[in-house]
C-alpha cells in the first residue's frame, strides 16, 4: 500500500461517512473500508477502475467528478477525499467548491510542483520535470493545472477555506506530495 494512503486514512475519523472522488482502482477505499469505516463509497470515471472496485466488493458510482458531484446534497459526507486528481480537472476551482459543499471536510492531496527535485529539473535541464509522481511528458500528461503546496495554501487563504499549513516554505521545498484537510 502507498505510504500516502496510510496518512490519509489516519485523517479519517472512525465510522464516519466518506466519499472517495476519483477513487481509482479502490486501493485506498479498501484500506479505509477495512480499517476505519465501512460507510465509504467511490466516484470513478474509468470503466476498468470501476470493475476493479467492484471486484474488491466496494461501492462505486461510475461518474465524472466535474459533473456528478452536484447530485449529492450539502454536507452529505463527513469526509470527501480527492487524491492527486485535482490538477487533472478542467475546472479545479469548481471541484474544490463542490467538495466543500458535499463534504463537511475534504482531504485533498496534490503532487507538489514546488518539490526541490522538480525545481532542479526545470532549472538545470530546462525541460518539463519528469519524476516518480509526475511520470508523463508534457504532451501526454493528464495534468492540466499543476500547482505547488504554496499555491494551494494561498488559494485556500484567498477563498477563506480553512486549511492546515504549518512550516509552509519547508514543506513546499521538501514534500513530493501535499496532503491537506480543508473545510469551509
Amino acid at each position, binding site marked *: 500500500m502507498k505510504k500516502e494512503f496510510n496518512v490519509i486514512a489516519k485523517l479519517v475519523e472512525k465510522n464516519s461517512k466518506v466519499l472517495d472522488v476519483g477513487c481509482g482502482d479502490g486501493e485506498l477505499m479498501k484500506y479505509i473500508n477495512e480499517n476505519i469505516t*465501512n460507510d465509504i*463509497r467511490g466516484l470513478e470515471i474509468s*470503466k476498468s477502475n*470501476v*470493475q476493479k472496485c*467492484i*471486484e474488491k*466488493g*466496494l*461501492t*462505486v*458510482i*461510475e*461518474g465524472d467528478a466535474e459533473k456528478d458531484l452536484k*447530485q*449529492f*446534497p450539502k454536507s*452529505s459526507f463527513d469526509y470527501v477525499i480527492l487524491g492527486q486528481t485535482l490538477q487533472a480537472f478542467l475546472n479545479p476551482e469548481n471541484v474544490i467548491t463542490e467538495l466543500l459543499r458535499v463534504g463537511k471536510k475534504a482531504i485533498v492531496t496534490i503532487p507538489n510542483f514546488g518539490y526541490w527535485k522538480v525545481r532542479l529539473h526545470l532549472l538545470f535541464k530546462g525541460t518539463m520535470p519528469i519524476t516518480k509522481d509526475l511520470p508523463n511528458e508534457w504532451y501526454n500528461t493528464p495534468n492540466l493545472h499543476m500547482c505547488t503546496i504554496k499555491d494551494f495554501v494561498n488559494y485556500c487563504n484567498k477563498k477563506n477555506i480553512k486549511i492546515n499549513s504549518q512550516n509552509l516554505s519547508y514543506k513546499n521545498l521538501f514534500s513530493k506530495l501535499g496532503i491537506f484537510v480543508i473545510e469551509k
Partner: protein
Amino acid sequence: MNDIKKVKKIIIDKPLKLDCGQTISNFPLAYETYGKLNDKKDNAILAFHALSGDQFAAGINPITKKEGWWNYLIGPGKAVDTEKYFVICANVIGGCMGSYGPSNINPKTNKNFATEFPVITINDMVNAQYHLLDFFKIEKLFSVLGGSMGGMQVLQFVSNFPHRSQTAIPIACTASHSAQNIALNELGRQSIMADHNWSNGFYGEYKKSPDKGLAVARMAAHITYLSKKGLEEKFGRKLQERDDLKFSFDADFQIESYLRYQGSVFVDRFDANSYLYITRAMDYFDLKKQFNGNLSKAFEKSNTKFFIISFTSDWLYPTSENREIVIALNSIGKNVGFAEITSDKGHDSFLLDVPDFLNTIKNFLNTSYNKLNEKRI
C-alpha cells in the same frame, strides 16, 4: 400448451385493488424457484422478468424446452449462485405462463377474458408478487433484481415495500417510460391489432390467433434490443444461403431471415393479448409521476442498498435514464452503486454472456451478503 396447467402456482385469495379501479381476487400467480431457502430465510432473491420473459429464469424451461432467459446469470456456481441463494421468479399478472391474464377464462362469459381483462400496471404486477413473501414466510428478501421491465418492477417494489429487501439491482431500465419506448410499443400493438385474426382480442373463440401480427411486433421489438454495431458485426449485408440477390421479397439477407425466425418462434410461446397488456403496463410506468415529479421520494423510506447497471450500446433504456435513478438516490444520501457496462450487444446485453455484467452482480451480491452476516455476528 397444456403443460401450462402443471406449472407451480399460488392462488391469491386476498382482493387486489388494481390501478384501473377494478379489484381482482382468487387469482393464480405462477412461479418457479431455484436453490434452497435457508433456515434463517435470509438468502431469498426475487427476480422479475421483462416483457417477453416468464417464471422460468434458469435451467431448462419445461414448456419451451429451451434455456431459461436468465440462465447465464442464475444457477449453481453462477453470478446469482443457486447453491447459496434461493431465487424466486413469478410470471407477471397479464402474462401467459400460468398467471392471471387475458387468456384466463372469464367466469361471467365462460370465454377467455381477452380484451375484457383489466388493464394492469407495473404497480399491480409487483403488488401481486408481493404475496410470494407471505407464501414463503420471508420477512425480508436479500435482493430484488430485474432488467428492462423487470428493473421497473424492482424500483416499484422498493417504493411500495421499502423495508422488504436488503438490496436491489435494477438493470437497463427507467423510472419513467419514454415517448420513444411508448411509440415502439404502440407499433407492436398496432401490428397485432392489424392482423385480421386478432378479432378484437377474441381470437380464442375462432381457433385462429394473430400470429403474423405478433411475429411482426416481435421482429420490430427485437431490433430495438440490439445495437447498430452489433447488427453490423453479426449480420452485416451477408446473404442467407444464396450467392446473390434474388430480386424478390424473399429473405435475401441474413438479418431478415433471423428476424423472421425470431418472430415465428415467439408466437409459439407467447399470447398476443398478453403482449398488448404487458406493453401497456410498461407505457403506463412513471414512478416519477407517482411522487409528483420527485423520484427521490419513491425511495425516501427505504434503506435498501442499490446497484444500478446500464449498458453502453443500449439505446432503448440508455445510461442517461438509468443515471436518473442513481441521481435520485444520491440526492437523498442513499446507498447506491452504479456501473455502465461496455457492450455492443444493445439492450439485450442483460440477458447475454457479458462477463463484466455478470461479475458486477456476483460481486455486489456476495459482498452485500457477507456484510449482512458479519453484522449479525
